[in-house]
């Protein structure tokens, strides 16, 4: 798949030797893909997203004392932009997060976790 240059030219985006995004955990790939899809669905302009992510990354300062990963910042920025766009309220997300937590705890280890609603 070819990503738009706007995506692969994001500041500090971890890329492999082929210029493709590289992830250190599956959830990172998931939130990355959700961001690309939400953008394609017209939720936000890519420039708006770049600004939002840039603001989160700027919290690292000079980058010498980084306790949060690139995708931790990405996730926070994604939550914020969805809130600003009126797509996802903090209450809604907190409720769903709790529901997923309960679903996980109710699921025997090794079985797929599903949200019962």
């Amino acid at each position, binding site marked *: *798949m070819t990503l738009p240059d706007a995506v692969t030219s994001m500041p500090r985006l971890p890329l*492999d030797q082929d210029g*493709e*995004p*590289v*992830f*250190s*955990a*599956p*959830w*990172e*790939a*998931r*939130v*990355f*893909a*959700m961001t*690309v*899809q*939400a953008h394609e*669905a017209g*939720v936000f302009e890519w420039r708006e997203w770049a600004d939002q992510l840039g603001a989160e990354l700027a919290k690292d300062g000079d980058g010498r004392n980084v306790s949060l990963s690139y995708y*931790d910042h990405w*996730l926070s920025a*994604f*939550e914020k932009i*969805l809130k600003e766009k009126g*797509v*996802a309220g903090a209450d*809604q*997300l*907190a409720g*769903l*997060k709790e*529901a*997923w*937590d309960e679903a*996980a*705890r*109710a*699921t*025997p*280890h*090794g*079985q*797929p*976790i599903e*949200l019962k609603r």
Partner: protein
Amino acid sequence: MSHDHDHDHSELSDVELRVRALETLLTDKGYIDPPALDALIETYETKVGPKNGAMVVAKAWTDPEYHARLMSDATAAIAELGFVGRQGEHMVAVENTPGTHNMVVCTLCSCYPWTVLGLPPVWYKSAPYRSRAVRDPRGVLSEFGVTLSDETEIKVWDSTAEVRYLVVPQRPAGTEGWDEAQLAALVSRDSMIGTGLALAPSERESAA
């Protein structure tokens, strides 16, 4: 992970919960389509920690002492190279020989050592792979393009929540004198699951 690993029930980390909450909400509102999301993620399935496991295998091929440590305590040997599972899983290395081919499946779920092997391929989670790998491993292997002689014994290892396997493929012929980096390039993800073999030097050239 700082919390104790609980074997009775599942547990999702804070970030995993946040990501799932977002996915549920965005799906409900029609902004994302889970099958399309899976398809997009699939394009990155080899992009998580792409070469971690390959470096482990290449080192085992070239360093007999490392090989011995890997076979006796894979978790510790893999950690030596800085690759530590986030789920506290125990790794076991199983080695292919001329007489034995190893293949990994997880019939219960799709437990997968992604810090070592990267994102699991989509078929790894599929019901047909999970059931047929146990029942008809030779047939599944041939569908992956791997034909083994009838004399070769196939061992199928079933992962659990606690134990994950790393297949150490056979070192290809014609690689005498190669260094670890060159060798690592021959170690595909599938060869570390056992659904493939390490590439021959000629295949590497044609793939590059």
